[in-house]
């Protein structure tokens, strides 16, 4: 029997008022893959993330995590099962230090503070925030905040990591650092789903790309296939550019 995919979404549908933010989206992610979800603003990428991770109840469709259905489960239960995520707008605990932030994530797997601290230090050393572990969350730059958010997600020891625009608004140097971090995360046999606008990063890290537009999946394929596809170019740049190609 074939092993169940890490994540499988069938017919994901979410209406926000009269708008179909997600309209019957199907996709699946194999274990160890990095799949990017791209699309213009308002395409439904974040909504898809929210429906998968239990933050929004989907109106229709089912989500399976390693074959087990997780549709309509609570967000914290899904996290416990091994799905971690970050947010488009960074979510960290401002009045805690970097170490405490990550430790709070590690507490999901360790009841004792001491063990959680050890795990948190390990994670921080890995993500390169070790030297800033005593900084307050609010005192960090945006790049470090995003890195911290990834660290917190990693501290919950997930099998699947979902990053929502972890590279938006970074300088070139910071961007390189983040791409490098994602590659290193992957080496630890992690599966990743990444929502990203920065095409440079998408091209470099993704095994597969899923393209959404106006709530629908318009195509799926390797990064190279996707950027050449007329429908994708049209969604991003308008019809004129398709013709001129």
């Amino acid at each position, binding site marked *: 029997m074939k092993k169940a995919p890490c994540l499988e979404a069938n017919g994901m549908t979410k209406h926000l008022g009269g708008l179909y933010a997600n309209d019957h989206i199907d996709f699946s992610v194999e274990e160890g893959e990095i799949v990017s979800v791209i699309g213009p603003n308002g395409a439904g990428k974040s909504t898809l993330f929210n429906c998968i991770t239990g933050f929004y109840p989907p109106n229709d469709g089912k989500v399976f995590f390693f074959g087990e259905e997780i549709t309509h489960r609570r967000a*914290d239960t899904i996290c416990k099962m091994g799905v971690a*995520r970050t947010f488009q707008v960074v979510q960290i605990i401002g009045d805690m230090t970097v170490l405490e932030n990550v430790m709070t994530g590690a507490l999901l797997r360790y009841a004792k503070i001491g063990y959680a601290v050890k795990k948190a230090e390990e994670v921080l050393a890995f993500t390169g925030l070790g030297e800033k572990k005593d900084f307050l969350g609010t005192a960090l730059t945006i790049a470090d905040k995003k890195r911290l958010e990834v660290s917190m997600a990693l501290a919950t020891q997930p099998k699947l990591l979902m990053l929502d625009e972890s590279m938006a608004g970074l300088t070139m140097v910071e961007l390189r650092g983040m791409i490098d971090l994602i590659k290193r995360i992957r080496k630890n046999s992690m599966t990743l789903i990444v929502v990203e606008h920065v095409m440079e990063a998408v091209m470099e890290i993704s095994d597969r790309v899923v393209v959404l537009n106006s709530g629908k999946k318009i195509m799926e394929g390797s990064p190279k296939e996707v950027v050449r596809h007329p429908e994708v170019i049209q969604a991003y740049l308008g019809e004129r550019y398709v013709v001129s190609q």
Partner: protein
Amino acid sequence: MRKMTFKQISRGLIALIVVGVFPLLTTNTFAQHVMILFFMFGMMGVAWNIMGGYAGMFSFGQVAFFGIGAYTSSFLLITYHVSPWIGLILGGLVAALVGAAIGYPCSNLRGHYFAIASIAFGEIVRTHFNNWKMIGAAEGLSLPMLNEGFRNFMFHSSKLPYYYIMLVFLIISLGICYLISTSKIGYYFRAIKESHDVAKVLGVNVVWYRLIAIMISAFLTAVAGTFYAQYVLYIDPESVMLLPISVQIVLISMLGGAGSVMGPVVGAAILIPISEITRVWLGHKGTGVDMLIYGFLITLISDYQPQGLPGLLTSLGKRAK
């Protein structure tokens, strides 16, 4: 993580010795009374802090728990001759259950909305008690005069036993708060306070942990309620269920610094004497001057030091450098 330092422990011990011998040095019962109220409000501030300062639920309905504690033990004592000590535990449990029952449907309320709901909760409970014939309605309950002694939780000849009992309650509450602040649930509370979303992605069951915070807070507040009933021996809704008591509890915690273990005690040490002394000096004229002064002080504090006294101390410290 936030372990106590030697300096903090020694400071705590000195403070403990000072408050321990204080009532032996003075025969002034008013001073003893103010100290007892200070401990009692300190304890309720600590209880509020677990819910408000750590878990971010700004409750303006604590007085309901206070009243439920006072009424449960008093009613059981009067009707079934149940020992106030058992009443104290039962009152705490009833308050915790009521807190959970009202907290559950309020699970998604945050910030101002939670505060509004908590005011409504406090007022609903008061109105209910004001009309509930079985427990004396608006006439309240007078506790029977029993023999003096620890067993009956009643002392007529001296305030000293009340003083020490309340001090012990306060210390126990501080211990509980300290344990919470240094353990997993304390960190989870703080995550919830920051945002429900961040708590959820860290795998925190937000609804459950909020209920835990409410129940611990309600239990401790109700224990203070039972103490108060045993101390004044007469309770009615107007004395144990009024909104200003809830506001007082919030002010104490905010002034002392919400989210730190000792904060509410510091706040109570300042606000309770001010409120009692202005009341005794100026309150009897019926002009409300005491409330004016009290209100003025609070306005000053919230205008200039919204982080409470610790904020003031750190900013003074910075200026000194």
